[in-house]
């Protein structure tokens, strides 16, 4: 009897010790941070829009997907087989700018044409509308891809191939083996956070966004054209999502494909709600929480339990637990279910 009981316990302890080794912890931490960086990037725009306008933009995932394809297109056009790494990074930079600009324009147009007319309706209709837009965008993407002979469902290999060699390698940093790609993603995540934070705290528009997220009626009574602020924020939000897509096009576990839209939308929702309505601080904190938890779960489910589907559930379990324990999210100030 005692032998039967000790075996599972021994296995667990053994795995635990494996986990607690510095090299494992460091590896998981880096992976967690890189996931967090990705989650921040795909969520930042959604969070700004939701916080200011109360609109849960269902089309956010589709925008990320379009950014991935658009960015991939740019890199595919600019990069040849023999292109060196520095040029590839430059191509990435160009791709990000193009994706940001194009998707920001799309977002602004969408807001003016479609979202504005239904400001006064209950939030349900804004969700419905953006859901409809998702269908349109995804199908348009499919049409264009099929026209050019690209499979919509599978990862776009051509785009993945434009990645610099250094990002595919493992690098040794302070004795820890990390993926070049993960470092790159962390870097971009930090840049995004800093960029958005600077926008929010250092610019006039950012001030309007923060004020409007609390009370947009009051902001209007102060003489600010809140509708214009809405449009700008919507455009910015979709622009950031587009840029995030470019980054994802280089990551084999995401990659440019039409299903990327749903793959990024759901975690983005989770991060927004776990973080708390209307706070960028909350988004960053939630992205860290979800990213690190995800990485930890991934490790455990590769090395201990054999249920391969569970890491995908992690994100939703975090959502469910958070909504039960603390419905307003980590930093939320509004009333629960206030929208």
């Amino acid at each position, binding site marked *: 009897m005692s032998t039967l009981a000790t075996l599972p316990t021994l296995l667990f302890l053994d795995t635990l010790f494996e986990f607690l080794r510095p090299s494992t912890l460091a590896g998981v931490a880096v992976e967690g941070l890189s996931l967090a960086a990705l989650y921040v990037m795909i969520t930042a725009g959604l969070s700004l829009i939701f916080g200011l306008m109360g609109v849960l933009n269902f089309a956010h995932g589709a925008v990320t997907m379009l950014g991935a394809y658009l960015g991939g297109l740019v890199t595919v056009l600019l990069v040849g087989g023999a292109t060196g790494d520095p040029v590839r990074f430059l191509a990435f930079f160009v791709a990000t700018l193009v994706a940001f600009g194009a998707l920001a324009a799309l977002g602004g147009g969408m807001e003016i044409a479609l979202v504005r007319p239904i400001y006064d309706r209950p939030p349900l209709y804004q969700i419905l509308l953006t859901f409809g837009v998702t269908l349109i965008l995804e199908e348009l993407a499919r049409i264009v891809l099929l026209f050019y002979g690209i499979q919509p469902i599978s990862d776009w290999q051509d785009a993945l191939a434009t990645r610099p060699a250094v990002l595919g390698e493992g690098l040794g940093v302070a004795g820890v083996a990390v993926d070049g790609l993960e470092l790159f993603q962390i870097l971009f995540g930090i840049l995004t956070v800093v960029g958005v934070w600077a926008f929010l705290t250092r610019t006039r528009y950012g001030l309007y966004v923060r004020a409007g997220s*609390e*009370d947009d009626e009051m902001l209007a*009574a102060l003489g600010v054209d809140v509708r214009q602020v809405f449009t700008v924020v919507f455009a910015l939000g979709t622009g950031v999502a587009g840029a995030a897509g470019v980054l994802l096009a280089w990551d084999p576990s995401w990659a440019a494909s039409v299903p990327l839209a749903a793959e990024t939308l759901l975690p983005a929702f989770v991060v927004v709600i776990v973080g708390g309505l209307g706070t960028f601080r909350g988004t960053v904190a939630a992205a860290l929480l979800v990213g690190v938890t995800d990485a930890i779960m991934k490790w455990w489910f590769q090395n201990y339990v054999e249920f391969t589907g569970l890491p995908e559930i992690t994100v939703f379990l975090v959502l469910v637990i958070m909504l039960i324990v603390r419905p307003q999210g980590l930093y939320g100030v509004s009333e629960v279910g206030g929208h």
Partner: protein
Amino acid sequence: MTDGGSTVPDGGSESGNESATPSGESAVPDGEPLLSVDGVHSYYGDSHILEGVDLEVHEGEVVALIGRNGVGKTTTLRSILQLTPPREGSVTFRGEELVGLDTHEVAQRGVGWVPEERRIFAQLSVAENVRAAVPESEDVDAGLERAFDRFPDLRERRAADAGDLSGGQQQMLAVARGLVGGNDLLLVDEPSEGLAPMIVDAVAEALADAAREATILLVEQNLPLALDLADRFYVVDHGTVVDTGDADAVDADSERLRRYLSA
């Protein structure tokens, strides 16, 4: 309706003013009013809140709107600001029609709002709260400095989160915000609500101060405060104006007002 019976100086009365307002002994100043509200009907959904409101405010005055809870005083202010756009009637400011404009356009024309519950941006700092009100054309720092000149207490706390301020300080902030940008008309809603008597005094002083620079339309349940600050008053009941007069001609507990104000 009781009626003083004395003649009314024709001054600011608009022709066609067919409301049920009796001609009280109010000395409505001469000349064109700064703000004129005529026959305004406003709704919340299908609820008919304002059933024909008529009033006017002249430059330099402090006019009080008094009445029980829920009679439409706040809605009147909101209707002026086009936050609750009137379905019927007109609102003119300096002769220009406000109905049909966006709220921010009304605000840009020089109408400020100090709303019920203050509604300061709790997560922004004091300075940022004022900054948000400074019009784009103006120098933000200059606007800030002027606001702090008027309310030195706020200067001390400029970096604090507005949500950490006391009730009285938040009220000062709300008033400062309302004045920034050189607003000529200030719509003030229940400034004394929820504040201790001593603080109310400080707020009253601040408002009296503000009255030197701006015209004020004041909604207030605290009768002595309202009558003290105001030159004239309107009594609102069931969505329309039912009485009007000079503030110093009436006592807070006079029979005339009590019938409209007891809960």
